[in-house]
């Protein structure tokens, strides 16, 4: 009978690797969702500042152990009053 294991059981690695792989996979697939999100963000922000819609860049990035939504939105002008 083996009392001590030499390594951690490989199942743990399988689960951890899968989780990360799927963040990447699912983020790539859900471009439709990102488009919807983009539209709503533009609407919300446009109430307060004028933005350059052409230059907006929204991405879902998955790094080492987390996923983050990164938005780069160039501001053209800040509105003085709410329109």
């Amino acid at each position: 009978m083996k009392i001590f294991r030499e390594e951690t059981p490989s199942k743990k690695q399988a689960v951890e690797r899968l989780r990360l792989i799927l963040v990447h996979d699912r983020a790539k697939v859900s471009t439709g969702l990102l488009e919807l999100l983009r539209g709503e963000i533009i609407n919300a922000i446009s109430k307060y500042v004028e933005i350059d819609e052409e230059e907006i860049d929204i991405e879902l990035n998955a790094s080492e152990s987390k996923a983050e939504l990164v938005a780069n939105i160039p501001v053209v002008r800040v509105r003085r009053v709410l329109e």
Partner: protein
Amino acid sequence: MAGRVVVVTSGKGGVGKTTTVANLGTGLALRHKKVVMIDADIGLRNLDVVMGLENRIIYDLVDVAEKTCRSINKALIKDKRLSNLFLLPAAQTRNKDAVTPEQMIEIVEALKDEFDYILIDCPAGIERGFDNAVAAATEAIVVTTPEVSAVRDADRIIGLLQEKELYEPTLILNRLRPDMVRKGDMMDVDDINDILAIKLLGIVPDDEEIIISTNKGEPAVLNNHSKAGEAFRNIVRRIEGEEVPFMSMGGEPGLFGRFLKMMHGK
């Protein structure tokens, strides 16, 4: 009442789709349902071999789609053992584009009223063959094994099924090895449930009897001594709406297992 149209799919090849279709089809037929299995894997047909019906093929799916044979019924092969079980084989010499999703819908519509179940064996991959197999289905079963690559592909397929408006696919976890799960070297049902988050339809243990049954062309569900056969019989009952507890596998060995270990002095 029109029959249920169920596609069995996986994304990855070699995880046991065809074996699953053969066993579910046979299992449902054993329960006196009228069942037709459609092999949608054009160019790489296999369901006929798993069923032991390879010598009886005259017409195939492409002949039906192109209306080369006069009626669909002419192309249906009756099972050797069960008179209420039929197979519509794939063409072996053509490619996946020989049939269109529209033709698949037409074929399934024509069969729907006559059968209780139409099971569609989907080819591996996510291209035309997948589109064909899924086009007419109203339910989907995703087959995977407890391996990173198979689970990844299953996840992708679940996404694609949703795009085809098949929102509630169920999962069959195939080829689970309780001994490896106990050692921590194989993902368990809970791990996979957690990741894929779809309803579990059944767990099928890895079983040498599956290879023997494929050698013979007799689905394991007919064999009362096969563990996998038992698992498939349970899955059939769940498809039919029964509540059947899942076979205990993995985790802690049961009382009997511990007793055996004591006997072996381990």
